[in-house]
């Protein structure tokens, strides 16, 4: 009996590492907040920006 094997080809996108970093950063920050810690603890680790004016 012929045994067939499915091989799933896995490739990386050119920007895969960038999008993964973006996702990892998001998750790490959310985990930090879930522990009741403040965003300001992370201000030297990530480049937070405030591009909105709420005035």
């Amino acid at each position, binding site marked *: 009996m012929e045994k067939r094997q499915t091989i799933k080809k*896995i*490739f*990386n*996108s*050119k*920007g*895969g*590492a*960038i*999008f*993964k970093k*973006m*996702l990892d*950063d*998001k*998750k790490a*920050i*959310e985990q930090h*907040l*879930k522990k009741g810690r*403040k*965003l*300001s603890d992370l*201000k030297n680790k*990530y*480049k*937070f*920006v*405030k*591009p*909105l*004016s*709420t005035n």
Partner: protein
Amino acid sequence: MLNPYPLTEADDLSYLFTTGQQIEYHIFFLDYSYMFADYPRIAGNIYSFNIYVPEGDNNIASFDERIGVTIVEVFKTFFKRIENVAVYVCDNADERHMARKRKFDFWFWKYNDGSIVKEDGIAMAGNMEIINSLLVHTNNPHLSELIFAFKDLNSKAGDK
């Protein structure tokens, strides 16, 4: 038309709005201008858009349409500076990322006045699929180049 919830500055780094059910939505942006480093003309003003809901985002799928109106209002404010570019990645931690994307797409489809262009992508990183979107103002002078670069980043490494 529903009114957006009032957006306030939560602290020096993030924004906040509270729904009628007293659920807080925190919004923060991170600078990822380096993501288009291979395209010097458009490298800059690239920010990731993030929503964090301390109580969990089950409410994100609720019928509170004012949440969607508020998110779109955030983007309208964001795009008052036409050069601004937003990138959104869907958190895949709990297998609900497709539901989040559908909700985000619905909000965009329903409340966008046509001034924002959204381009969707799926990036592969190892065996992980990362669903992502690019949002650009229609009048951004580098619109075509931004979309081209975004598609390029999502394309298979080695493709030309």
